[in-house]
């Protein structure tokens, strides 16, 4: 076997039907073309899983993939991604997580693991360097993520790293994620349900190896340069370390784009009560950083004897203003139960918000609640209790565990679901921020902010300020942000580094580790390739470009109060510009020319 740099050179293939485990050599051509993580995982999915496959059938595969920088000394180099076909959206799914599991998995000697088939009985995968075994998981089946992690620590010792589903994933909730290191999540797009559908409870890892570096001296230089930028940047050096992502609550609200009461409003007059400032003052116990992270945005909070990681900004928004709730303690509890049951906090909270609107409008009746707290705006008890009921997939909670789109559709009003491609949108009202709306509409995994974080230029003025109400140039910016993000995901670094680092910095780190010679522009171009491959997968899956849209409310009903009053999202202006910027036809299909340019002609 050749000597690999950055990569371990081995991909595990585990078939749960046949109970077989194979160690295959990494396809280095694919690795160079798609880097790793999200890129490599999508390539494997495209090669091996028919896009028309039912996401919860045995034919779907679940791929855990690291990037070449995962497990290295690079700042935030600990990410892993879960790639599969999503049961929530029907699109390609790629959920990205931090913590420590990804680096540990890499230390065990693997770049990725492909899970195939379905076990008859609940099992878990135990990986300890060369040892890889499929084992009986009946003793942890039904347990929460925290209980499961504790149980494996009993068996294998405290140093073990655990990625597990909670009861929600076991019961195939389409908004369930995969938890690792207790409080970190590959949360979005229902990847937990795919794991549950295979009767795979957890992947337990211990690794003692390391990652080979091509040029240690060059890495030292690139590392110092990146670290200096991260430390000197106001956001990564001060803002995020001091307040975590929750500091956004006030910023977004002051701009009048904090979705409130299921996007019926966009300004929450009690925002300060649920802000990052209040979190730091009243509830934060300590910081909770990920592997080799100089930023340390993670929070660890406590309320009424409940403690754990989080909550993040998106979670505070979802259970907070989007449900009209100003009780930060209740939000911390709802976040805790999401982590324990293994629910995506964005989709879970946005689904409760949708249920509250269904209740407000009389679609959900009081008797449907079966004695659970009333789904009325601002009811703090309701967000906690309904999170539990969704996690237990019980009663009306079972219907809600399918996500807001299917919930609202069951009452004949799918338009009340604030989602794109059936995945709930996060915490920024696109009526007052044109670019983020275009990003939501075109994201390859449905409603999502971390495919192309246009909040950075439109609200935070990073790397430069753009007029948030204007449509000019938003298509080009969105495309670049989407491509750049795909490359950052693929190498295995955290997106937050991009507040401080530029494309050349990533290319320098990647080159010094892998021995490649990419320029910053070429680094971003790989993201373009990944983006187009994802798009092709979705098109083959039958996702029509007409689904590149936003809920009617955001296109037709102007914001009624606050600083963004009167605005709607002008997607009809920006979408055609975006298709053009992407080199796609006016119907949103990648052209042959474009695919040839990207070396993707085989997939058209």
């Amino acid at each position, binding site marked *: 076997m050749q000597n690999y740099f950055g990569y371990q050179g081995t991909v595990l293939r585990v078939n749960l039907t046949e109970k077989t485990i194979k160690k295959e050599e990494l396809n280095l051509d694919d690795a160079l073309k798609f880097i790793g993580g999200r890129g490599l995982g999508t390539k494997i999915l495209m090669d091996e899983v028919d896009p028309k496959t039912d996401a919860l059938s045995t034919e779907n595969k679940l791929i855990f993939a690291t990037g070449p920088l995962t497990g290295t000394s690079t700042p935030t180099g600990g990410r892993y991604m879960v790639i599969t076909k999503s049961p929530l959206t029907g699109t390609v799914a790629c959920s990205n997580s931090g913590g420590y599991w990804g680096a540990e998995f890499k230390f065990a000697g693997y770049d990725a693991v492909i899970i195939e088939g379905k076990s008859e009985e609940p099992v878990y995968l135990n990986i300890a360097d060369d040892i890889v075994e499929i084992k009986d998981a009946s003793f942890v089946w039904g347990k929460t993520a925290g209980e499961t992690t504790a149980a494996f620590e009993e068996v294998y010792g405290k140093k073990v790293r655990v990625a597990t589903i909670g009861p929600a994933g076991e019961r195939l909730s389409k908004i369930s994620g995969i938890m690792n290191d207790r409080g970190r999540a590959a949360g979005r797009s229902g990847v937990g349900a795919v794991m549950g559908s295979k009767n795979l409870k957890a992947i337990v890892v211990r690794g003692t190896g390391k990652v080979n570096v091509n040029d240690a001296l060059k890495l030292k230089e690139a590392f110092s340069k990146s670290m200096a930028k991260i430390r000197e*940047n*106001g*956001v990564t050096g*001060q*803002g*995020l370390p*001091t*307040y*975590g*992502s*929750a*500091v*956004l609550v*006030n*910023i977004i609200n*002051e*701009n*009048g784009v904090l979705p409130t009461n299921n996007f019926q409003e966009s300004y929450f007059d009690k925002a*300060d009560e649920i802000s*990052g*400032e209040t979190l730091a003052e009243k509830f934060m116990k300590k910081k909770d950083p990920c592997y080799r992270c100089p930023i340390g*945005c993670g929070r660890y909070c406590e309320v009424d004897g409940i403690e754990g990681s989080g909550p*993040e*900004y*998106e979670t505070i928004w979802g259970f907070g203003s989007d449900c009209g709730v100003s009780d930060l303690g209740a939000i911390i509890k709802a976040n805790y139960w999401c982590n324990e049951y293994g629910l995506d906090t964005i989709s879970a909270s946005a689904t409760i918000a949708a249920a509250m609107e269904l209740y407000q409008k009389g679609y959900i009746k009081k008797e449907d609640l079966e004695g659970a707290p009333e789904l009325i705006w601002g009811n703090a008890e309701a967000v906690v209790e309904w999170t539990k009921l969704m996690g237990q997939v019980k009663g009306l909670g079972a219907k809600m565990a399918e996500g807001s789109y299917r919930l609202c559709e069951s009452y004949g009003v799918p338009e009340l679901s604030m989602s794109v491609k059936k995945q709930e949108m*996060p915490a920024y009202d696109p009526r007052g921020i044109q670019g983020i709306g275009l990003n939501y509409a075109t994201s390859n995994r449905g409603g999502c*902010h*971390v495919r192309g*974080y246009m*909040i*950075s230029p439109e*609200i*935070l*003025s*990073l790397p430069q*300020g753009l*007029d*948030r109400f204007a449509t000019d140039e938003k298509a080009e910016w969105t495309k670049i942000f989407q491509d750049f993000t795909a490359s950052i995901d693929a190498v295995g670094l955290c997106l*937050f580094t991009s*507040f401080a680092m530029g494309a050349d910095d990533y290319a320098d780190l990647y080159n010094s580790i892998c021995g490649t010679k990419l320029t910053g522009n070429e680094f971003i171009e790989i993201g373009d390739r990944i983006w187009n491959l994802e798009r092709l997968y979705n098109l083959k899956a039958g996702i029509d470009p007409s689904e590149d849209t936003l809920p009617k409310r955001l296109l037709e009903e102007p914001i009624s109060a*606050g*600083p*963004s009053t009167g605005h709607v999202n002008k997607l009809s202006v920006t979408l055609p510009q975006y298709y053009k910027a992407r080199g796609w036809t006016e119907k949103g299909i990648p052209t042959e020319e474009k695919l040839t340019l990207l070396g993707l002609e085989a997939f058209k």
Partner: protein
Amino acid sequence: MNITVKLFATLREGRGKILEMECKEGTRIRDILHDLKIEEKEVAILLKNGISSKMDVVPSCGDYLSIFPPVGGG
């Protein structure tokens, strides 16, 4: 004229959250920050009535400013 200044994150330290300020006509945002002993380089996001603004702008009576140090996330 009266201007409301809303401060956030670390800018609140020693200053408070919401300040009601009495300013002379023609006072620029820059001058208001100077009075509050906030250095311009400490300001990353500056909003007037919720809309992005600039240091040289002269606010009108009843306007409110929202001022943030470099912060972000998501």
